[in-house]
């Protein structure tokens, strides 16, 4: 095992330990903040799946995120007691998110590049506006408050405080990200990255690209949907302010900072971005957008692709992750040497 992977594993273990211990190190407000960061981090993971791994840049993952969050809120408000069971909410969230992706797929699947960014931006924004206007269902700009606390499973006590809610969210995020990581180590990850590199070449090898793209969108929608249900569980409140263009760009920034195709990086990157935003609002209230804008510009320079090939390792913070597909016991080879 190379020094590089040893380092990565060490960092990963430390991060995991820190993540579990965190709620005991901060107060209730801190735990709630951490939970929210985790939730947005999971949406950023879905952004990374599309943008980094599949090469489909998106500003619209807030769409399935919002749809699922509202669906789970409504579930918690109107269906009881089943609507307050964590497992039910997670399934509902994933399903609504996946359905949203499926329904919007005719708009997004044929699109690539800048056009895809525009379309996904428009979709995400329209969902937010619609949520703000559809008072009877979504509560309009006031949002929906869910009073019933979530029980993870039938028979368990409800999650009564912020720490419990945070740990629940952590567990769910760990499972989802872990599952996605494993799935991407196999053929799915290879095919998505090949499509990202050269779609025409992929077709020339007999693979149909449209199905691949659709699957990626639906999977990302399901993941964002799970995040939506977690939002309701941890905050017990949902409103249009959680979504929209601003949030989508923050998530994109977090995913970019975290590194092309890095799932864990997406969560870390999101935490960094949210932390920076809150810190800036604290030191210079009112001027935060200006400073945040400069942060975005700086990040664009720092993380702009320098290599000749898109996706080819040149990012300073993290290396691109890829399935260890070729690293079987049958086949010993050297670690990929990446230029930087």
């Amino acid at each position: 095992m190379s020094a590089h992977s040893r380092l990565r594993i060490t960092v990963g273990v430390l991060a995991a330990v820190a993540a579990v211990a965190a709620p005991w190190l901060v107060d209730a407000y801190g735990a709630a903040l951490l939970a929210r960061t985790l939730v947005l981090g999971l949406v950023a993971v879905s952004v990374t799946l599309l943008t980094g791994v599949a090469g489909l840049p998106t500003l619209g993952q807030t769409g399935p995120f919002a749809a699922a969050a509202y669906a789970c809120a409504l579930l918690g408000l109107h269906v009881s007691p089943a609507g307050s069971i964590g497992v039910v909410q997670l399934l509902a969230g994933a399903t609504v998110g996946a359905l949203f992706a499926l329904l919007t797929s005719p708009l997004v699947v044929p699109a690539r590049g800048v056009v895809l960014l525009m379309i996904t931006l428009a979709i995400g924004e329209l969902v937010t506006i619609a949520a703000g206007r559809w008072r009877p269902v979504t509560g309009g700009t006031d949002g929906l408050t869910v009073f019933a606390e979530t029980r993870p499973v039938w028979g368990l006590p409800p999650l009564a405080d912020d720490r419990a809610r945070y740990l629940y969210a952590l567990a769910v995020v760990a499972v989802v990200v872990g599952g996605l990581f494993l799935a991407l180590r196999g053929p799915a990850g290879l095919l998505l990255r090949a499509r990202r590199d050269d779609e025409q070449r992929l077709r020339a090898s007999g693979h149909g690209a449209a199905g691949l793209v659709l699957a990626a969108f639906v999977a990302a929608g399901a993941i964002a949907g799970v995040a939506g249900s977690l939002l309701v569980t941890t905050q017990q409140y949902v409103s249009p302010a959680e979504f929209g263009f601003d949030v989508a760009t923050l998530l994109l920034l977090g995913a970019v900072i975290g590194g092309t195709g890095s799932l864990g990086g997406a969560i870390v990157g999101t935490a960094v971005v949210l932390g920076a935003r809150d810190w800036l609002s604290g030191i210079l209230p009112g001027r935060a957008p200006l400073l945040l804008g400069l942060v975005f510009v700086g990040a664009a320079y720092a993380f702009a692709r320098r290599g000749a090939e898109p996706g080819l390792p040149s990012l300073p913070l993290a290396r691109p992750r890829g399935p260890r597909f070729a690293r079987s016991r049958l086949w010993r080879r050297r670690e990929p040497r990446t230029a930087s």
Partner: protein
Amino acid sequence: MLRLDAYVIPALDGVVYGLLLFVVAAGLVLCFGVADILNLAHGTLYAVGAYTAAALWNGGWPALLVGLAVAPVAAGAAGAAVAGLLAPVARRDHLAQALLTFGVALAGGSLLVAAFGPDDLPVRVPAALAGTVEVAGHRYSAYRLVFLVAGTALAVLLHAVVARTRAGMLVRAAADDAEMVAALGFSPARVRLGVLASAGALAGLGGALGAPIIGPGPGAAPTVLLLSLVVVVLGGTAGSAGSAGSVGSVGRTLVAALAVGEIQSLGVALAPGAAPFLLFGAMAVVLAGRSLAKSAGPIRTWRPARAWLRT
């Protein structure tokens, strides 16, 4: 029974709104079709124009004209600044472009609010334009009627520039094959500068002309950006595989802009609160129909990415 009469004014409003969106969206189409740039700061450039009008207009005609001259210059300069900021970013790196231009939009919006305050600003037009005029038995804003004329003239002018001037020809050529244009000796940096400055000027002019319609305020930039994006997506983009080239795309953008304008005006009058759904539905129908048409008809080239862009 639908009282059609009640919808004349909203329908007229829709045309006015649509023309405004056309002027603004044309700049976005230019950025994107020629220089492959997604400029998320485009709404901010509109706001620069609108704020300029609010600052310079004092109700007199000379001030009106001065404002209309200064606004495109100011916004064009801002566009040029964005071009400069984008210089170190690779042409194909759309994510970095999105992050950078969004950062500019955030920072620019903050600066405008710092300079002009957080409220929506009133815009003072000359007295002759501030009143109403009788149209088909209804009273309608004189300014909007004049805008109707001015906007149409601007649309015709844009079409003429694209179709008949050398600059327009370059625009069409670059939209078809940017590498070819670079090989002809036009440096990409110069192209980017020209495109962003022109797009800025268009947005600024739209901002000044449209200030009485979508006025200067913190919400103007995001609204204008979103609606322009929808127009660009609906209208297709500059350049096409057919012989019409981007001359045809000016027309498509106009039609799309009018459609969005009508949805925002007439649609709201017919079904209040339904505007976002209607916009969404329009996008869904157009995009799905477009991709269906492509798969049903004789597809000549299997290069999906570029083929989609060259709708």
